[in-house]
């Protein structure tokens, strides 16, 4: 954890980790768990039962024409299906597959470079790309940004892809161009990866190594030159973001004819040591931690994602998801604790906010649960969710949590208004 420097006049600058670690390949795990974004008994008859045999890269969905699916990352038999709800209330069906240890590849995937193929096979690719905006008639995507920056401090999974898989990214960029019909494809990388990025055939743009410049909203402002209005997504502005790892997975699939079912994960141990591992999607965290010799104690934190924007989780049985770029293990003594102190109006958050939100006022409104006022007067929806305000807060207010709660509640209010209108 980076502490405040002795001289506190200048605001702290958190730098991304820019040197991807070499990769450690993990063996096929004994079981994998895949999270299907559909409640078990919600959407129609489930096409899958416990005891079914599945092949590697087989598409598993509740029904054949369902938009939500998972791609099996191993060959084996389904051993359990259970409901699962994540930290933000999203309901899933957790499908556990007992792996046989051998790969028997499913052959449903064909090398047809169409948007239907992308929608049908790549939504569960490593890096969790989304092709739905391309199929949405209300959105016209004119630019694709292949983001070679990682989304959090210490993580290097995406930069690893740019550094070592430039050839795959190149064919991924070609495939993207053909599938979506979008001409302008930009790749954003830190300075030191420009050489590799130049070989990918995409327009190369550099991004500073200072957090949070790698986040999509900051790239929109600094690189694309379009500010995303508060409450909108880059897709609303005609720009789609896809991670470098996802682009590489796309390219690899069209080159070899086999969908990629592995994910690169940066594991950060208690001592801050980082290791990159490549493992099957759905591998339990337990296996990954064991392979990296990271042991857990009571009251430690196990964080999916990174230290600034990740989500602490409660069990080592949970799986690596396609969007899991990192696992951070934090000792109790090192973990940031929040307090119930009030804001003392010192202004540190205002000075560090990358989008100039008056956080001191915003947090007062959020504490008072005035979510609509917070959005109307104090720019709640402009927040790009970097977490720096909480990081510098001298009162240790969980500002970031208040903001996320505020956005969630605001969403509920808007949904209710739309329903009653």
């Amino acid at each position, binding site marked *: *954890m980076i*502490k*405040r420097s*002795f*001289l*506190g*006049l*200048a605001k702290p600058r958190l730098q991304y980790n820019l040197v991807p670690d070499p990769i450690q390949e993990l063996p096929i795990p004994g079981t994998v768990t895949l999270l299907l974004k559909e409640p078990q008994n919600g959407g129609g008859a489930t096409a899958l039962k416990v005891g079914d045999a599945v092949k590697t890269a087989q598409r598993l969905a509740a029904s054949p024409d369902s938009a939500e699916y998972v791609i099996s990352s191993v060959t084996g038999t389904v051993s359990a299906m259970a409901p699962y709800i994540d*930290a933000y209330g999203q309901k899933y069906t957790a499908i556990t597959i007992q792996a046989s240890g051998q790969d028997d590849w499913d052959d449903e995937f064909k090398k047809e470079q169409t948007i239907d193929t992308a929608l049908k096979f790549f939504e569960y690719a490593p890096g969790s790309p989304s092709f739905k905006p391309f199929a949405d008639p209300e959105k016209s995507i004119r630019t694709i940004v292949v983001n070679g920056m990682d989304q959090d*401090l210490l993580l290097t999974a995406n930069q690893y892809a740019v550094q070592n898989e430039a050839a795959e990214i190149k064919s991924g960029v070609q495939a993207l161009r053909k599938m979506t019909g979008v001409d302008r494809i930009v790749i954003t990388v830190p300075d030191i990866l420009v050489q590799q990025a130049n070989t990918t055939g995409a327009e190369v743009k550099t991004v500073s190594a200072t957090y949070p410049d790698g986040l999509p909203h900051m790239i929109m402002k600094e690189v694309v030159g379009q500010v*995303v*209005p*508060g409450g909108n997504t880059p897709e609303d502005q005609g720009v789609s973001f896809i991670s470098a790892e996802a682009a590489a997975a796309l390219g690899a699939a069209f080159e070899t004819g086999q969908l990629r079912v592995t994910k690169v994960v940066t594991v950060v141990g208690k001592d801050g040591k980082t290791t990159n591992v490549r493992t099957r999607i759905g591998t339990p965290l337990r296996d990954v931690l064991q392979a990296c010799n990271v042991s*857990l104690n009571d*009251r*430690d*934190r196990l*964080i999916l*994602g990174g*230290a*600034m*924007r*990740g*989500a*602490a*989780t*409660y*069990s*080592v049985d949970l799986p690596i998801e396609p969007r899991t770029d990192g696992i*951070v293990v*934090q000792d109790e003594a090192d*973990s*940031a604790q*929040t307090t*119930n*102190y009030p804001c*003392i*109006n*010192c*202004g*540190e958050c*205002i000075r560090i906010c*990358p*989008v*100039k939100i*008056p956080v*001191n006022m915003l947090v007062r409104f959020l504490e008072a649960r005035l979510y609509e006022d917070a959005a109307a007067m104090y*720019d709640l*929806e*402009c927040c790009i969710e970097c977490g*720096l305000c*909480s*990081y*510098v*807060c*001298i*009162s*240790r207010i969980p500002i*970031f*949590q208040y903001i996320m709660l505020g956005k969630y509640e605001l969403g509920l209010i808007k949904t209710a208004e739309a329903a009653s209108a």
Partner: protein
Amino acid sequence: MNNEKKLVVAHAPYWHDGSKISTKNYNIIIAALPAVLMGISQYGAPALAVIAFAMACAMIWEVIMNLVLRRPIPIGDGSAAVTGLLLGMLMPATAPWWVIALGTFIAIIVGKQIFGGIGFNPLNPPLLALAMLVISFKGVFDFNVALRHYDLGFVMTYPLADLKYFGTEAIAKFSLGDLIMGRQAGAVGSTFGLGLIVGGLYLMLRGYTRWEISLSFLAGVFITALLFNLSDPAKYAGPFFHLFTGYTLIAAFFLVPEDSSSPANFIPMLIFGALAGLGTVLIRNVGVYVDGIPFSILLMNLANPLFDRIRPKAIGKVVENA
């Protein structure tokens, strides 16, 4: 299931820069030490007694109020101690005990706790107490009367009082060097200019106080005093005299940038500081009070919520035109 480790979940971010309110307040106390020690070395045990009694009283009032209101007792954060220390620094060494007890009561309870405690005070607590005491007990804060039994080997009249009642000829006897080195009559902790500047620089460099407010306040005092001085040098004292006398320096570094009663955006901080400085010199030169510090800053505290409405447009904010 039973052999699973019990993990702690929380919302992001999982890093913190390690800053704490107690660290900040203890650093303010450290920064105030040079000026306080100078005061104690000049006035001896009575000065020490004023400082110690003010700090103790402030902390006791806070504990009592928190007990009465059944709120958590955050005494360890040093906030009450800082308030007491600063109020002590604004008092003459001869201040009677009941003035200190009353002053800390006003600062802690009227100034802070009835609004909800730390972070909620709309006015600067030590200055609110000082203003009420100055109005109520004129004799206690008339430094010429209060310090009449002291002879410390330098001019023992209060410079601002001399200026007010006898004009600019009366202040020719104060050399700038004496003023900066604390060789002037005044409150316990506010006469040693050099010590206050060193403490203020320490706080600004370490980021515990907002340099924008401190420097714009000093600029406000300097420029206003300079303009008065240029308009009529025989009637109005020069800018350096105003900078190094009275409460100017302690206010600039310890009182004006108080967190919750001052703005947090860049431009409002500059306006706030500059106007407080302007008000100070205005009151000194044309007002009835010898020193304008408490009143001009309290006035600006009241306007603070308005100042903070001047703010940059958030990136991505959509302004809907009718």
